[in-house]
């Protein structure tokens, strides 16, 4: 299948290095301590953060740091074909784990010992890159909840199809079976916290693809920073400062 | 032989009558249901409930139990407790009521259809919750488990009435017995205590769960298109039937206590 036309356009009309339209919004769930919606093209996720609060299960309490928990769930209507599957399938558990570990790395857990932070991500629409979108949404929600973080974690994916590195794969490109690199970075510290790839790729090309994904992450980080700044300005405005 | 016996079940189907036959039946039946003077499949009049057979103490190993048979609907309810809660619960100065309704695989005419009634457990809980004096067994749980042996229509009302009888048999304190009756609306007719066949053609249904001697409604569900006068009429019909059912249940309990113990 041809994923990049001779004119250099992808199936959805993007250039290879072009990201889908991204949109982030803080405060989607009024009852949560922090929440956000994040969209990457048609992929749309909501994240809600509860905490830091008392640890529910005493056995899991840690005396020197906060417990971070994460649950990833997909809405029945989130995919093209409607499906009803039981909660807690393997894929959800795996993604929950990835998100938890990524966020744990940036939250300053040592500041909140004996407490618990819950991150719930809910996929409303899935069109490739849900993992990245969830991490981005979770970052925004954590920031909204005022939880101290070392840096903003952002994530983006990149792939390699038709001998072209492609940024931010959508569902069709993602399911083509080519290499798919998902990267999560701490943008200011310039550190990679998450790197997943599940296909063979020559070393030199891998570097290119990864570099592309890192660039994507940085762009998202800039955008998220803007969203947060804007949100803060509005809060200030409302308080009349 | 293992494969043959049980482990991998091949796809099977029930040899039900052909679609064509069904269609014919349906065309014959539906107008009849709408007629003013159709006869119910079991020959009852519209305002007549099925003969009820109730008995307490059906399950020896339970704290209390009851068996109810309304026509083809057959239900057993066991009550266990008050006993320690299964889940580690927070301290509570009132007791917990835990309800579960399940179906046998042969309860309905097509095998294994009974699992559609997931909400019955929570509906049973809601119906009983208001009647049971939860403060009389703090920190503990009373389990009410119902098994529908055969489903012949109006299953949930029968389960609810039977459950309150089982609770009484177990000596759990209640404000009153809980009785439940449903009414189906078929065309312009109101039909009390419908059987499965009537339920599948009904235009609307109303189920009332009440505590007859307190004249209180503990649970009520209604579906379909109703006008207010019709609701009035149906509610009155149900409440009257609840009152009578309450009497039957009471006499059943009286008999059980007066009968010499084994």
């Amino acid at each position, binding site marked *: 299948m041809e994923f990049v036309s001779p004119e250099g356009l992808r199936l959805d009309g993007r250039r290879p290095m072009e990201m889908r339209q991204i949109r982030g919004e803080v405060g989607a769930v*009024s009852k949560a301590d922090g929440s956000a919606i994040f969209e990457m093209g048609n992929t749309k996720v909501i994240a809600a953060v509860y905490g830091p609060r008392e640890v529910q299960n005493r056995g899991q309490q840690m005396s020197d740091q906060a417990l971070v928990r994460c649950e990833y769930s997909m809405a029945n209507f989130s995919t093209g074909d409607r499906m009803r599957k039981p909660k807690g399938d393997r894929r959800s558990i795996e993604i929950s784990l990835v998100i938890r570990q990524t966020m744990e790395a940036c939250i300053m857990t040592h500041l909140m010992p004996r407490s618990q932070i819950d991150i719930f991500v809910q996929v409303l629409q899935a069109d490739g890159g849900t993992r990245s979108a969830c991490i981005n949404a979770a970052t925004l929600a954590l920031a909204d909840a005022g939880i101290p973080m070392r840096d903003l974690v952002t994530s983006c994916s990149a792939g390699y199809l038709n001998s072209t590195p492609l940024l931010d794969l959508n569902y069709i490109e993602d399911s083509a079976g080519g290499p798919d690199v998902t990267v999560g970075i701490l943008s200011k510290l310039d550190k990679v916290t998450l790197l997943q790839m599940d296909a063979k790729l020559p070393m030199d090309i891998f570097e290119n693809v990864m570099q592309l994904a890192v660039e994507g992450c940085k762009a998202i980080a800039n955008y998220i920073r803007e969203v947060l700044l804007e949100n803060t300005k509005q809060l200030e405005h409302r308080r009349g400062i | 032989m293992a494969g043959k016996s049980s482990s991998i079940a091949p796809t099977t189907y029930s040899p039900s009558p052909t679609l064509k036959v069904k269609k014919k039946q349906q065309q014959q039946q539906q107008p009849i249901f709408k007629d003013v003077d159709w006869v119910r499949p079991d020959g009852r009049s519209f305002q007549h409930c099925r003969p009820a057979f109730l008995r307490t103490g059906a399950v020896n190993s339970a704290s209390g139990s009851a068996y109810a048979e309304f026509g083809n609907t057959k239900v057993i309810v066991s009550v266990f407790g008050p006993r320690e809660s299964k889940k580690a619960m927070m301290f509570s100065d009132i007791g917990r009521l835990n309800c579960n309704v399940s179906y046998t695989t042969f309860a309905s005419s097509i095998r294994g259809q009974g699992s559609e009634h997931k909400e019955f457990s929570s509906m049973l809980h809601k119906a009983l919750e208001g009647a049971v004096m939860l403060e009389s067994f703090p920190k503990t749980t009373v389990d009410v488990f119902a098994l529908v042996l055969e489903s012949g229509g109006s299953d949930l009302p029968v389960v609810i009435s039977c459950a309150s009888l089982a609770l009484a048999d177990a000596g759990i304190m209640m404000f009153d017995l809980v009785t439940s009756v449903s009414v189906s609306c078929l065309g312009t007719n109101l039909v009390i205590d419908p059987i499965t066949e009537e339920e599948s053609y009904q*235009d609307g249904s109303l189920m009332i769960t009440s505590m007859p001697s307190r004249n209180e*409604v503990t649970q009520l*569900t209604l579906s379909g298109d109703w006008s207010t006068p019709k609701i009035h009429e149906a*509610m009155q019909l149900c409440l009257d039937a609840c009152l009578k059912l309450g009497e039957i249940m009471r006499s059943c309990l009286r008999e059980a206590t007066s009968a010499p113990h084994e």
Partner: protein
Amino acid sequence: MVGLSVGEKHFIQGGIAQDLRSDGRKRLTYRPISVETGVLAQANGSARVKLGGTDVIASVKAELGRPNHLYPDKGKVSIYVDCSPTAAPMFEGRGGEELSAELSAALQRCLLGGRSGAGAGINLSALIVVEGKMCWDLYIDGLVVSSDGNLLDALGAAIKAALSNTGIPKVNVAVGASADEEPEVDISDEEFLQFDTSGVPVIVTLTKVGRHYIADATLEEESQMSSALSVSVDRHGHICGMMKRGGAGLDPSVILDMISVSKHVSDQLIAKLDSEISAAEVDEAES
């Protein structure tokens, strides 16, 4: 779930008794409703409804299926609700299942009418493609994103909005196929059929706190309820479904009174919702 002090409880109950609730509303006033349609590109129809702090999304997906042999001239509709853990941490894992099942059953009862389809808000005959052979199956999914009480009314409103947003592809049936064969169909990409949603009822839940009942209770108010009655009423004042929640018993005369009050409230709610839905559709068309 809601931890309230004795003082707070008294405040809520006292406010209700004096017809001035903690957020300034009267007993039978709804919180502001905001409707957004077409929020999910992949669904045939979708809507997001916010009712104060309660936020729900409904989606409608249509698939071709076979009609039930008892009703060969009608399509099928099913409703499922899911409670996302984003709404409350207690919905984590399997924690939301019980509430989801309860809401799904209540919505099915309130919106789909009787077993025969009479009283359904959706004209099921409009879903038929080939009688006895093929029909549209509508799958309505609700998702609770944020919960601040009165989920049932919000979900009902979201489903109503999603249905009016739904376009079902026009199906052309190849003529000449004999009665026994599966009909060949051609699903159009361009022509869509809209539903007539004027018959879809709204759900009004009256929550009884003390001796009074209130409409559109918040989570705090719901924690103080003794019982609640949800009534679904259509435009003509017909009752399409009803269910009682909460443990305490109610006197039959009180129920009848609550029904008439909810009919009265539903008039305003329908008018408000209709104007919100049309405004949302205009918004969507513009954007």
